[in-house]
């Protein structure tokens, strides 16, 4: 099959509403969104805490957060596999080769991205915001919500980058999910499998979906940040 034929076939699959294909997309989006929703609160709070406080070992915390960004996802997959396998400490959960396992993986893969980007966004924010809040008598919690509100475009960028990382990663989803058809097959694991079988059409179709998702998410972020600029706010 030539590339041209494969691409034509890919579009046919996309527009004919191929159930298997759209189920794969659904599994990917669902696990990514849930993993990200779970990772966002702790990552944002931790990023905020590291950015706002001076404590011994702070530089080490920043260093580790940055390092975690470049951790290969297969390594995270291996670690989770060992934890979740029958003899592992988390074995009784029976999450290996299930969507819960993939969600756990997305959580671990997404967390450092969210943390590091939130940390950077809060650190880049003018310190007078937090000072003004404190000077006007805000509680710790109110200072936090005020600062995160002022850094909201940075935090949003963190969430979108996190989404980009989890939906496009393949190593962890493959090892922990197991690429089971109709169960744990995600966009990326399906592309890897179909390509190895020489079936390019579905791979190309899923690739188109992935790129479309990336375009839509980042376009939305650009629009939001554009509005921030015209409103005189900070990006």
């Amino acid at each position: 099959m030539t590339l041209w034929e494969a691409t034509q076939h890919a579009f046919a699959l996309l527009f004919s509403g191929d159930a298997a294909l759209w189920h794969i997309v659904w599994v990917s989006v669902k696990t990514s969104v849930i993993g990200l929703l779970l990772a966002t609160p702790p990552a944002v709070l931790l990023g905020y805490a590291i950015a706002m406080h001076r404590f011994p070992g702070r530089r080490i915390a920043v260093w580790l957060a940055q390092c975690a960004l470049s951790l290969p996802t297969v390594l995270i997959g291996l670690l989770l596999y060992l934890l979740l396998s029958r003899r592992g400490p988390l074995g009784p959960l029976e999450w290996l080769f299930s969507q819960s396992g993939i969600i756990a993986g997305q959580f671990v893969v997404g967390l450092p991205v969210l943390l590091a980007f939130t940390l950077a966004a809060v650190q880049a924010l003018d310190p007078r915001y937090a000072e003004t809040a404190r000077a006007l008598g805000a509680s710790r919690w109110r200072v936090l919500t005020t600062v995160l509100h002022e850094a909201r475009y940075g935090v949003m960028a963190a969430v979108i980058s996190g989404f980009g990382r989890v939906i496009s990663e393949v190593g962890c989803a493959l090892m922990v999910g197991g690429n089971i058809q109709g169960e744990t097959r995600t966009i990326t694991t399906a592309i890897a499998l179909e390509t190895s079988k020489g079936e390019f059409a579905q791979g190309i179709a899923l690739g188109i979906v992935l790129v479309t998702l990336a375009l839509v998410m980042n376009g939305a972020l650009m629009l939001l940040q554009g509005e921030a600029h015209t409103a005189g706010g900070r990006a």
Partner: protein
Amino acid sequence: MSSLLIVRGLRKGHGERLLFDIDELTLDTASAYVLTGANGVGKSTLLRILGGLETAQVDSLVFDGQSFSLHPYPQALRTAIVYVHQHPIMFSTSVAQNIAYGLLARGEPKALVKKTVEEAMAWAGVDYLRDTAPARLSGGEKQRVALARARVLRPRLLLLDEPTANLDGSAREGVIALIPTLIEQGSTVVMACHDRDLIGLPGVQRLKLRDGRLEYRSRSERNIEP
């Protein structure tokens, strides 16, 4: 006149270097002070310490007859003292919400907050900015909103860091005109400044930071040595 704040043995250093070592700083109730001194002498730092935004060593601190330590910064001082930046920053909400911020943080009832904010906007002459994005305000407008934002809290001690710096013409006059009414409402006001018009406001006493020491000039001395 009773003392509002007495601080003894106030020391602040950056690394090895001692910025200042103040034997005693006394501020009276409902009085106005200007804090002068060359650039980099630590005027802002002193105000920020009193406002609980920076740490320093203090031997003793008495506020309104009660002893406090500075670390951690006590809630009683947090409620009574408000610091305003040289270039105030506006939260990206609305002008009214900026002014309401401290009142809402204190958990005041919404109806009272609304009424107080309306009054404060009229006082500061910023009614017309109600629907303007705070980031679009001019320097003078920001300073007036910041004063209103602090005033609604009825602080016992108001610390203004160069309130007229980088303002000129009517913007500067607009800010200067608000200062006496702050003192009239019973607040003690300390302004770090170079501005001659602020130093010349009636009844204002002068504090000068020089070589790490605080020189206190009472009103009578001021008449002899302007």
